[in-house]
């Protein structure tokens, strides 16, 4: 924001994101994200119980466990 050294101010630990006003107050229900994405299924994964990842971390972990047997 400024290039001055940061000085503690009264808002140092307070809300930073201003939820800006929208350019308009109204829009039809057909233009909402819900109508566009058809609800939650396009936004969220619900497979956390079953997900099995094979990323670098998991591969390294496997090696680590084998060396500990």
């Amino acid at each position, binding site marked *: 924001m400024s290039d001055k050294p940061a000085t503690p101010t009264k*808002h140092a630990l307070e809300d930073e994101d201003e*939820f800006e006003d929208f350019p308009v107050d109204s829009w*039809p229900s057909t233009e909402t*994200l819900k109508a566009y994405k058809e609800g939650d299924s396009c936004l*969220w994964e619900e497979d956390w119980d079953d997900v099995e990842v094979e990323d670098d971390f998991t591969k390294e972990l496997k090696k680590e466990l084998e060396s500990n047997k």
Partner: protein
Amino acid sequence: MIQAVTSCFQFKRCTTHLLEFIAADKPMVGDALADPSDEKLAHFVRTTAALKIEYRCAQGPSPRVFELALAQLRALNRIAEWESGWVVYPLYTCARQLVQMAAALDARTERAAEAAQCGDLATEDHLTQCGRAVHMSLNLCLKDRDPAASNKRHGAYYFALLLFRTYARLGAHSLVTNMVKVLESRAQDLPPVERAFGERRALTVTYCYYLGRYHACRRADYEKGFRWLNTALLTCHRDHTRHHQLILTYLVPVAFLARRWYPKHHVIAAWPPPQDPAAIHYAALVAALRSGDLGLYDRELVRMQLPLLRRGLYLPLSHLRPYILLRLVKAVWRLSGGSSQLPIRIIAAALAYSTSATPDAGGERLLDHTECLLANLIARGYVKGYLSHGNRVLVVSRTEPFPRLVRSETAA
């Protein structure tokens, strides 16, 4: 113009004439000669006319403009007390204008005070004064006892929305708590939020965003937080990506805590790449939630510490840790062939590996620490089994070692 304004009050309807009359930056059309006969209305008209003139002279908000805008809201408050629901939107427009002016003036004073290196502000800030007047508007809506559908009780949400914003800037958390309690205690007299705002979806989104944040970050009530924030997101206009990101900053951790849902790749991948190395960005965190990489999670929490604290998100995010630990235990169980007996030594090794801790000599302390963490997971019901301390073994259920934790919408 005055004629058109007077007829709004006469016929109990809000027109663009009235909204433009309220706006300080819109010039007066015609003259103010036709003073309304009603004394309260005449006072409102005179104050507004003076506000418009002062605003034009000062070319924007000034302390004097603020005083007149405050007087305008008080004048309209007095009229609104006797009016029905039609008055809510013009009154809201008037109050919103005041909040915007107060915020601009206080930001200016703060910058000046910072530059002058002086301490507390000598005078009461504009937002505090403005908050009291808007609170009057909220109260007069709540107090409306008219049983007819045309009452103005739905207006309570309109002014609560403005007060959320005002109190957030003031950091006045106890005032938010009081206001939410009052609204909750009157819930049976108030219409549902989405009906109260109707087509004005921008207001539904803003109200739900602030209320969701309050429940999630101040009360650690993730279920309520999730419901409000999710409504905010889904009601948002599909093109307002900046607002999507602001809502998701809160919703991503809360959706996991309430439902064990995590965002699809495209949802957070679309966020603009952060300039600031400490900016909130959840891609790595989501990867840790999937893989059980506890070290990655710990590093992310340190990296984003300050922005998370500023937003009240540090506590919700720290509540994610047991789930990542659980993920790690589950990975160890799977990689060791899914046996019902898991030596604590193996889990401790995984824990030390993921957090890059060096297992201390003998490892007794590490084993005790691991048992303690596992005992917590068992107590929470995340792992079905027991600890055999003597054998240093975790014995898990053969049928369902890891009960399902994801809550789908239908089951919720």
